[in-house]
């Protein structure tokens, strides 16, 4: 060990002790409670998605003539293909749920307030990336709903004034769904968005560590005694155990509810019952309620407000001297999202 250790030390001028000190972030005690670690869950699921995604890409063939058949082959013929595919699909679902829950906990603890505004906005980018990954991934299967989902989404882009038409053409690689479209979506899904996401996650965590996680004192905790525990190995072990539990949960879901496959995309018939994935139910309902441009621009506005919420909140607090207004906004927002999702699910 000593010999090998010295060999490396002579070549790499880093000391293990220093490295450990640098990276060993003290974790505040409240992180022993799992709901404070919800941010770690999407990170773990993201790794699951990278691994299963790379595996799926070994068999998946991104072209209109082959995509559907290759997914069928993954599901029915490839060894454990159904398992890998179903885990990928379930981890995507859980990831979106975990990101949303994580964002809600950040919101309701007002952890986005100064100095954490930048990390809130990075978090918003992560949320959008996750939703886009879900959407582009779903389009790869090239079943009916994949095709019509892409068609509707690209026409949604088209309704945006001035730049909309160009965005649509860039997305589809033509005027409408064509032979270039599926490879664009595949590259977005399997290369561009994941890379973007890795960079955003790195930034997110770097900033988090620079600022420290916002700390809380719980009533049932002793005032005295250490306020922190070590990231390594304590917190890492916790995360590894949580991760294994997640893998078991994913496997159970994958076995009980494996990913199915619909009918092949048909540009000539839109199926009678068309619904996006559950996480787009609110925007789907919005589109039914309001005519095209109104619906699209108002959704864009809502996302924009969410983006700059830390600053809006600061202005409200300054103007009214009332600190808890955000709670009411948050409750209204959550009720609306949950209500719209349930409404669409039950209809």
């Amino acid at each position, binding site marked *: 060990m000593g010999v090998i250790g010295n060999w490396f030390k002579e070549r790499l001028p880093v000391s293990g002790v220093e490295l450990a000190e640098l990276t060993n972030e003290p974790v505040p005690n409240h992180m022993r409670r799992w709901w404070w670690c919800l941010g770690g869950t999407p990170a773990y699921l993201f790794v699951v998605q990278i691994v299963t995604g790379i595996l799926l890409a070994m068999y998946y063939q991104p072209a209109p003539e082959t995509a559907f058949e290759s997914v069928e082959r993954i599901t029915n013929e490839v060894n454990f293909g159904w398992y890998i595919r179903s885990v990928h699909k379930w981890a995507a679902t859980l990831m979106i749920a975990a990101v949303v829950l994580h964002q809600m906990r950040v919101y309701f603890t007002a952890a986005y307030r100064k100095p954490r505004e930048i990390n809130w906005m990075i978090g918003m980018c992560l949320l959008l990336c996750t939703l886009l990954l879900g959407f582009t991934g779903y389009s790869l299967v090239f079943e009916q709903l994949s095709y*019509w989902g892409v*068609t*509707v989404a*690209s*026409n*949604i882009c088209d*309704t945006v004034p001035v730049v909309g038409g*160009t965005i649509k*053409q*860039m997305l*589809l*690689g*033509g*005027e*409408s769904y064509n032979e*270039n479209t599926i490879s664009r979506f595949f590259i977005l899904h399997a290369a561009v968005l994941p890379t973007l996401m890795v960079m955003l996650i790195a930034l997110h965590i770097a900033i988090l560590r620079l600022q420290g996680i916002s700390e809380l004192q719980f009533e049932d905790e002793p005032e005295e005694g250490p306020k922190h525990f070590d990231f390594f190995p304590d917190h890492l072990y916790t995360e590894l155990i949580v991760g294994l539990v997640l893998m078991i949960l994913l496997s159970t879901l994958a076995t009980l509810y494996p990913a199915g496959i619909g009918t092949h995309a048909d*540009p*000539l*018939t*839109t*199926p*009678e*019952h*068309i619904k996006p994935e559950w996480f787009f139910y609110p925007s*789907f309902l919005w*589109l*039914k309620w*309001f*005519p*095209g*441009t109104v*619906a699209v621009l108002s959704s864009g506005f809502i996302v924009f407000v969410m983006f700059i919420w830390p600053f809006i909140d600061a202005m409200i607090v300054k103007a009214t001297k009332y600190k808890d207004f955000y709670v009411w906004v948050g409750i209204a927002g959550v009720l609306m999202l949950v209500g719209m999702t349930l409404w669409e699910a039950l209809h």
Partner: protein
Amino acid sequence: MTSEAEKAESCPVDGNRSDGKDRRSFIARFSSLWMGLGLVSGYGYFASIILRFLYPSRQTNAKDKSWQFVTDLGSIKQGDSLTFISPAGEKAVITRMNMKGDASDFIALSSVCPHLGCQVHWEANKNRYFCPCHGGAFDPSGKATAGPPKAAGQSLPRFTLKVENNLLYIRAKTKSLV
């Protein structure tokens, strides 16, 4: 202003004359500006090549419209409808309403919903075209009667038809061969 002082030191000529200093800092700023512009336009040019590569090369295959053969009159009865796809990819539903034997027997509507582009289909029992995506509905002439298309006042576009020698033709976009 330590940087100013450092610059003055590293550039000994006229080091303590204030007007010379001003001139030099002006030149320094001016050349940084040009350097910056050069870098931005250089890299910007490569970025523009990437964007143009991604932009579909033939923005549209659709050239001028022309008369295109659909079917002979004998093979479509009153109440029947058929789907026609032009070489440029336009989709039309052609329905026969009468048996007079001329173009006025037919209605040719684009089957692409003007809302967000799903395919409408004919619902004979309700005498309407229906779009399942967001519940848009259209009367037999293509006018929107329900859903987001009605709210936005969008109708299904109509195609022109003609009959020659008992053959039905539609005027639709052609695709160029180049």
